[in-house]
């Protein structure tokens, strides 16, 4: 199989701050997820892969070619940056056409590809509207559209699902999977495990600039499941909810936040916890306003994995 992405001894630091350190890996076609807490080095790695940053040591290659200042390789590369940044005064369609014109397409072809990309991300109906009027989900989708509009072979997506509502997430996951089915190489970063699970089983764990594990999702889940998870549920009936869950043997701890009408559960078996929660919701008139998994949970898991 042709190796799409290679990193050899890749290191990068910002002054005294380490970005990534001695990363060695090969990535083949399919979806590969970079999972790590905020500040782990995911974005630095992706910026090096897309020629935004230079490595201090080592090198990154795509299809065997160095990336930095290699305009040829950018023809095969699509990049969706993490920042929610746009040329706000342009319409979604103009934004795509403008960027596509940098590939040397004729005006007609650029317009055709822009329309196709808008279709793929289901934004055709709002393509004529200024980007500044888009919702968060639409902005994320137009960002993905600019990355896929030229039909690249390698797609680098930095936190593409961040801050999206479930429907938008589903749409984006669908697009990414369609790309995978076309034999492309996709690298996705995230700091939220369930997001990654919905996308792929191939995961690279990155922490403090180093790759600490690589494997399929089940291997990673086994590692992670040995560490307790925190789940915060906001509900007007939070006390009743806590009472119903209290007898479960996989529950390690509960903490109340009466001022927020919330309860925080700690469990070492996330799957059984959510199965039980589903049963409760179906069998009783419980109302749930919000379910969150505090971000520092993953940080704690990573600290645990690296033996801190």
């Amino acid at each position, binding site marked *: 199989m042709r190796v799409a992405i290679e990193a050899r001894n890749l290191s990068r630091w*910002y002054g005294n701050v380490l970005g990534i350190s001695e990363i060695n890996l090969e990535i083949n076609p399919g979806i590969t997820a970079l999972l790590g807490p905020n500040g782990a080095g995911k974005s630095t790695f992706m*910026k090096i892969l*897309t*020629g*935004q*940053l*230079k490595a201090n040591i080592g090198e990154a290659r795509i299809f065997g070619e160095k990336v930095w*200042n290699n*305009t*040829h390789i*950018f*023809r095969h*590369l699509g*990049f969706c*940056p993490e*920042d929610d*940044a*746009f*040329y706000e005064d342009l319409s979604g369609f103009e934004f795509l056409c403008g*960027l596509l014109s*940098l*590939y*040397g397409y004729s005006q007609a072809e650029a317009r055709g590809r822009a329309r196709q990309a808008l279709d793929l991300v289901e934004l055709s109906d709002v393509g004529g509207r200024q980007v500044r009027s888009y919702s968060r989900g639409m902005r994320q989708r137009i960002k993905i559209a*600019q990355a896929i509009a030229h039909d690249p072979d390698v797609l680098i997506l930095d936190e593409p699902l961040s801050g999206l509502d479930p429907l938008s997430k589903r749409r984006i996951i669908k697009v990414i999977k369609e790309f995978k089915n076309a034999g492309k190489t996709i690298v996705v970063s995230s700091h939220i495990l369930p997001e990654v699970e919905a996308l792929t089983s191939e995961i690279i764990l990155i922490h403090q600039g180093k790759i600490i594990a690589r494997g399929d999702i089940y291997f990673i889940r086994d590692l992670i499941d040995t560490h307790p998870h925190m789940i915060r549920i906001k509900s007007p009936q939070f006390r009743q909810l806590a009472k119903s869950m209290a007898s479960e043997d996989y529950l390690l701890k509960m903490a109340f936040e009466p001022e927020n009408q919330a309860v925080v559960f700690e469990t070492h078996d996330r799957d059984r916890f959510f199965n039980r929660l589903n049963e409760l919701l179906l069998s009783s008139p419980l109302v749930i306003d919000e379910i969150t998994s505090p971000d520092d949970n993953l940080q704690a898991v990573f600290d645990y994995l690296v033996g801190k």
Partner: protein
Amino acid sequence: MFFLLSSASVLLAVIIRGYQLAGHWTESGQIIFQNILMVFFLQFLIVILSLFYGTSLVTEELEGKTLPYLTSRPVSRAEIIIGKYLASLALTSIMLVSTVLISYLILNIDRDFRLKDLWTVARYSLVLWLGLAAYLSFFTFLSTWLSKPILLGLAFGFGWENVIQYFPGTTQKLSVVHYLKSLLPQYTAASGRLSFLFIRLEPTRDWLSVLILILITAIFLALAALLFSFKEYLMQD
């Protein structure tokens, strides 16, 4: 905003023309336009337009975090910066040339107006355009070099460029405005109310002035392209 600023000369020309027609302003349209040219266009408008467009070429992309959209495309970084420079030059040229032409016509169209007068305004426009291209190139270079280029740009455009031209001898040749004024030799003699602004000019020959302005443009644009090609730009949160 810059379109409005450029239009200020048109408004000024309309007001002066009104006074002129009412018999309150005795100087000819040519002399009045020369004064507007030297003070407003030459020493203010082309500097401010090139300063704000030039210094924002890279910093705007950095502050808006949109730079990766450009630098992850199959065009070289040098092409990106030159393309952005040319786009800004085209836009500012339209603002400049249209307002020069309209202001000139407002002040000079009368029974004595001849088509050959348009040659004069074409010459003015060309000189101003050369200045615009040179300043824009310098400020583009500052934009690729510094994270906050506007302060140095202001100091250069409205400090150095204004002060240095009053120095005698070769010192005044270390400014862009010296070569621009040298290309308007008929106005170096004392004429008009604001003639004190250029009485010390020791003009350089026309062909040499044009050559130096072209060289300034080419050198700073090449430096900007080179720097932009090899420098990393970190976007801060």
